[in-house]
């Protein structure tokens, strides 16, 4: 072991600031979700109640396009927030770089599929047609 240089280099050149944006997004989406998700949850589980939900409930709800918009926003924010949160978790616990990339990739694909599937049904659902 020989003496080390004390001179310290930069870790890496200044980046895109992605992490700063992600951080800010988590806060902003958190506040948004505070409205959307919490209201949604209490509405469905208390105002209506799980026992009283059936196909017709949704039909009634989505008759109003504003509700569709609401659910779309909820879907987008919750999935974006949750997926980025999942990224944090995976980056912490999956240490091997190869595995980390793979698992993150799979998670993103799954998340994208879910968002697309959810958006698809919200847009295309035709209550009258069924």
């Amino acid at each position, binding site marked *: 072991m020989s003496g080390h240089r004390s001179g310290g280099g930069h870790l890496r050149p200044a*980046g895109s600031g992605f992490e700063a944006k992600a951080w800010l997004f988590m806060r902003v989406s958190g506040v948004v979700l505070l409205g959307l998700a919490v209201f949604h949850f209490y509405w469905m589980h208390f105002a209506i109640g799980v026992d009283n939900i059936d196909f017709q409930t949704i039909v009634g709800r989505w008759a109003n396009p504003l509700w569709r918009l609401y659910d779309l926003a909820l879907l987008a924010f919750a999935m974006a927030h949750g997926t980025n949160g999942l990224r944090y978790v995976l980056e912490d616990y999956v240490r091997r770089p190869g595995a980390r990339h793979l698992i993150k990739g799979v998670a993103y694909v799954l998340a994208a599929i879910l968002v697309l599937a959810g958006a698809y049904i919200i847009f295309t659902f035709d209550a009258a047609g069924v």
Partner: protein
Amino acid sequence: MRVTFKVYRYQPEVREDPYYDSFSFDAEPTDRVLDGLNHIKWHLDGTLALRRSCQHGICGSDALRINGVNRLACKVLIRDVGSKITVEPLMGCEVIKDLVVDMDPFFGHYRAVLPYFMNEEAPPDRERIQSVEEREAFDDTTKCILCAACTTSCPSRWANPGFLGPAAIVQAHRFIFDSRDRGAADRLSILGERSGVWRCRTIYNCTRACPKEIQITKAIGEVKRRIVDDRS
């Protein structure tokens, strides 16, 4: 009073795996935990290895995990931790021998944040002027003694050894908020990287562990704010 020290041992030249040793002896309640470790080293088992120097919480040599939480052995008294005392090396650092860990990665992260005064403007003949309030803005983070108690208590750092860790951020904060310094932009761009402040999940273990009672989480929060504000 009778105390029992359970001490983490790792003697690579003798035995491959770490193990624990127990020592029981009489001590005063007002003795420091370090006094107990010294007693073991001097009178019971000279092979025990630990770092220590000033013995009063200034040099930062003897940060250890004591009864499950990071402390300076010279700043906790036996009466504060009870008669059963477990002493282990800092978590997430390579153990060299017994309680001695490799500090090179820690100091590497320290050096990475450019921990030195930067101001290339010609200085005045006398001192640079700084108001009492300006001086106060970074007073807290000047206290850091680089003991590593904070960084090695941070779960985010355990998970990611690449995370610069709270101590390095504290040291950067000391310059970023010094009205005389001109290097804030360079440091903020380093801290804004993936392994910088964003790895901090506001867990607060660091603040609780700091023997100088530095408000570390607050300092990290101030740096985060500064980065976000500078971008917008």
